[in-house]
């Protein structure tokens, strides 16, 4: 399975600032997704990162708050903009090779906003 690296692994940020999270895969992948997991909760899908075009956002998530880039088939970034303490969460990147293959996840970025 693909090796997924997320950077940073954790960060503490001040409210009002922005943080960009990187997801690097060691092979080309068809699908890339970004999830959020709040403490003790399940995962919530933020958006599908589309290569060469705008990301597809799930209900409750907007591009102005969570801009996403995917310049190629191995890399994507998620920015958490104008952060507030409610954005404190774990942000996870997941990738899929083909429609019938299972998704694989990175270990996430633990974000704390003070």
């Amino acid at each position: 399975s693909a090796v997924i690296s997320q950077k940073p692994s954790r960060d503490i940020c001040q409210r009002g600032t922005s943080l960009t999270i990187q997801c690097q895969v060691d092979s080309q992948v068809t699908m890339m997704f970004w999830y959020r997991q709040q403490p003790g909760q399940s995962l919530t899908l933020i958006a599908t990162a589309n290569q060469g075009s705008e990301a597809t956002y799930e209900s409750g998530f907007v591009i102005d708050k969570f801009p996403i880039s995917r310049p190629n088939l191995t890399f994507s970034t998620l920015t958490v903009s104008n952060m507030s303490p409610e954005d404190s969460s774990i942000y996870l990147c997941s990738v899929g090779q083909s429609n019938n293959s299972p998704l694989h996840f990175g270990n996430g970025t633990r974000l704390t906003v003070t």
Partner: protein
Amino acid sequence: LAKTTQPISMDSYEGQEVNITCSHNNIATNDYITWYQQFPSQGPRFIIQGYKTKVTNEVASLFIPADRKSSTLSLPRVSLSDTAVYYCLSSFSGGYNKLIFGAGTRLAVHP
């Protein structure tokens, strides 16, 4: 995407077999059933995937009856290291792999 329902928590002891049942009454024809395991501070890890009948790998078995309205993940002879959250999901095979997570089952294995 079909919604899945599974027990919030389960307890077991080392060496026992654990069966976690998941309900997916509205599963679509093209949906697969996929199970993930998640440890604290890690991303979910794929365990097993199936469409119907029985699938077995080195980690677990997955039983899906003919009507596909439920499935059972079977973990043989659990150890303390199997303490984790287990997620049952239905995934659309024909278009893309978007996964919608439910609450998961928190399994605690005791000595």
